[in-house]
């Protein structure tokens, strides 16, 4: 495992170089071994007939001794004597190399015999020379005969040994030659095997080194085709391929994340646009309904204003006030219905509306307000409270016949602002509440005095404004027990407060 991790930490260049160096070393090693082998055999082949050469030299040297002695005996010159001593010295030196031991090998024994006989011979030759120098004719002739005889024997011995050795050496030579041929075959086979090994090693090791690269190429191809969901590649090594694989992996991950983010933001933008479009549509709807209900409001304002002025001039203050408020109510209706307003504006609107109704119907609606003054500046969509109060009066109180009560409260609930409109009218059944909340409730014909904005429109606009589904709740304890409508708004004052605090 250690080795594997070490190997995987090598760079690609080192890896591939190592493979080539390794295989080359292998080839070189095998070549060296084979060359040494061939060298060894050729050396041996050279040495085979060395013995024969030595024996020939020995024989020549022996002949030189004999010749020089004969020369001296016949001429008695100092030159020939000198030659004799030199040749004798040579021959003695050569004898030193001959084997002296008694062994199981016949060559060795023959060498030993030649050596001893030669010593005997040299002694005899010496006697001959000495006798000749001493002019002892009788003696030197006898010694000469002995020496000549011995010379004959030794020569025969050497010739025999030489022939025997030549025979065995020839056999050895043949044997060596056979082995050499065998070795040649083995060498060829070795080279082929090493070649094959090298090819396999290179293929497998290079393949193993480049396998991650292939995988990487496959994955890159997939990515290029647009498939970002490719499996992440395992980083097997720490070489260049490993680095590239790691980078590729993080790239694929990054691209995935980026695409995800892009899609989310596009989604959000689309939702925003949709909301805006819907809000506009509802507003238009509301305004259309309003315009359907009102006939030329500007003319009405002017008319009403003219009536108010007339009443003032006539000193009819109550009439003046009434006409004035009616005019205010319609102006507000005209002006504010298309924009965001404050709770105070809405409450003012409800005030006008209740005043007008009380004048119309002889003051039988008791209108009560419990307002947290801090919340008056909270923003909300226009034309919300008036339709709700209108519904309370039309469906709750008017049908009751007795004294009706409307209670408008604005208070804080946790982080939200709650606007409650409570009446003591006929109440609502659970089914009706559900239908209203779902926007499925349809009134049969518009009641007189309605400005034509239905509850479903109110709910839709509230939802769009607050971006929240829980914008309204209707609560009724049952028939004759009254109804309470709750509106929930975000507490804009708090946010503003926070923003100012932040600043």
């Amino acid at each position, binding site marked *: 495992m250690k080795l594997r991790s070490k190997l995987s930490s090598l760079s690609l260049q080192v890896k591939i170089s190592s493979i080539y160096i390794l295989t080359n070393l*292998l080839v070189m090693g*095998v070549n060296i*071994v*084979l060359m040494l*082998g061939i060298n*060894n*055999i050729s050396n*041996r082949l050279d040495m085979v007939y060395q013995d024969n050469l030595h024996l020939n030299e020995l024989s020549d040297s022996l002949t030189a001794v004999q010749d020089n002695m004969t020369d001296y005996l016949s001429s008695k010159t100092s030159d020939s004597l000198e030659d004799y001593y030199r040749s004798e010295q040579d021959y003695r030196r050569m004898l030193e190399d001959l084997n002296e*031991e*008694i*062994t*199981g*090998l*016949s060559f*060795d*024994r*023959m060498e*030993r*015999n030649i050596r*001893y*006989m030669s*010593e*005997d*011979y040299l002694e005899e030759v010496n006697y001959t020379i000495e006798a000749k120098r001493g002019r002892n004719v009788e003696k030197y002739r006898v010694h000469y005969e002995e020496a000549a*005889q*011995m010379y004959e*024997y030794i020569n*025969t*011995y050497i*010739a*025999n040994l030489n*022939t*025997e050795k030549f025979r065995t050496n020839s056999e*050895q030579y043949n*044997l*060596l030659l056979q*082995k050499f041929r065998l*070795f040649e075959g*083995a060498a060829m*086979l*070795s080279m082929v*095997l*090493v070649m*094959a*090994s090298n090819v*396999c*090693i290179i*293929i*497998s090791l290079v*393949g193993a080194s480049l396998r991650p690269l292939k995988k990487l190429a496959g994955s890159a191809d997939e990515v290029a085709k647009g498939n970002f969901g490719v499996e992440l590649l395992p980083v097997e090594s720490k070489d260049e391929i490993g680095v590239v694989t790691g980078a590729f992996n993080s790239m694929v991950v990054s691209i995935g994340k980026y695409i995800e983010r892009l899609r989310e933001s596009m989604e959000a933008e689309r939702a925003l646009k949709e909301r805006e479009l819907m809000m506009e549509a509802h507003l238009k709807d509301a305004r259309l309904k309003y315009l359907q209900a009102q006939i030329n409001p500007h003319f009405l304002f002017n008319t009403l204003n003219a009536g108010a002025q007339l009443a003032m001039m006539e000193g009819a203050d109550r009439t003046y006030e009434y006409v004035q408020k009616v005019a205010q109510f319609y102006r507000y209706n005209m002006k504010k219905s298309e924009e965001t307003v404050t709770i105070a504006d809405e409450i003012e609107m409800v005030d006008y509306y209740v005043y007008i109704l009380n004048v119309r119907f002889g003051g039988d609606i008791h209108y009560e307000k419990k307002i947290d003054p801090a919340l008056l500046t909270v923003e909300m969509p226009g034309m919300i409270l008036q339709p709700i109060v209108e519904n309370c009066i039309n469906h709750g109180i008017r049908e009751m016949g007795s004294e009706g009560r409307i209670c408008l409260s604005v208070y804080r609930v946790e982080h939200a602002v709650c606007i409650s409109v409570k009446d003591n009218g006929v109440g609502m059944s659970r089914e009706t509440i559900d239908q209203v909340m779902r926007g499925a409730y349809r009134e049969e014909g518009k009641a007189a005095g309605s400005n034509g904005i239905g509850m479903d429109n109110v709910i839709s606009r509230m939802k769009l404004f607050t971006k929240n589904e829980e914008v309204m709740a209707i609560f009724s304890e049952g028939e004759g027990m009254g109804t309470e409508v709750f509106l929930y708004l975000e507490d804009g004052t708090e946010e503003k407060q926070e923003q100012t605090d932040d600043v």
Partner: protein
Amino acid sequence: MWTTLLTALCVILTVAMAVYVIWFYQSGLVEETEREVYDKYYVLITEDSKSAFWQSVYEGACERALEENAYVDWLGEQFFEKYSVEELMRIATASAVDGIIVTANENEGLTELIDQAAAAGIPVVTLYGDNTKSARCSFVGVGSYNLGREYGRQVLAIISDRRQEAAKVQEAQDAVLEGRAAAGAAGRDGSAQPVRVAVLVNAYAQDMDQNILCSGIQETIEQEFGAESGIELSLLSVDDTNAFSVEESIRDIFMEQETPDIIICLNELTTTCVYQAVVDYNKVGEVSILGYYDSDTIINAIDRNVIYATVAIDTRQMGAFCIDALQEYHELGYTSQYFTADVRLIRKENVTEYLQKGEGDDETAQ
């Protein structure tokens, strides 16, 4: 996967190849004989190196020598030229060997050479033939007198066999020719014909042993029949001066008018030659041969009833005795003067034993 397998295979093969190459070096290119060193070096010098007799002697000597950590060379075997015993003696002496075993005779030249060797400190053992006048340290032989007595006994046995056979024939003839008494008497006179016994001796060897052997035969016969035995014992000279003369001499004997009834041969070569001559001249049954040595040819001839009997000398023992004598001389400075090898008689009755043994030997030799 397959590349891994292939790589593994190649690597294994390469390793195998490497092992082979290493083995190739280790094993050595040429088998070298183990070079054993010996303490002593002896030489055996014989006249004849081809015969199974001397081969066996040499083997016996070698065997014993190896036990004693010595080595025996059969001198002359390695030369292409044929040297005489005297020349070989000279070579051996000059080679300063540790001992010489030589088949001697009473030749004076040889005596001188043996003395020279002894003077150079080389002990000489005479083998088979002695040189009594020389300074040889020991003689290893076969006990010629006993051998002669054995031959004599065999001669008697042959004669008794023949007489019995003749008597049977006579009886048969008598039965057929009943009433012709005169003729029968004449026939009995005819059976008193002398039996001719010839001993083949080497012509030029002035060998005491041959004489001792002959007197052994003579004495045995005389003991049985007295001086007037009707057996004529004669010595026939065989010319052994050159390589082929022995065979020629033996043929000459058979060319003569009267061939001997019994021929006693005193060496392996003459035995083989006589055997062949008897077969060639169609004298089987007429001439009884007493042979020498137990070569395969001779044993087979006994089995076929051509040779009556042969004496088998324990040749290996002879060779061993030579080495013993030399070793003893080197150790003690002296040794026994005589060693006598065992002699066994091989006849038709016990020849199967030797036949089997011979075959067995061949098998082991193979």
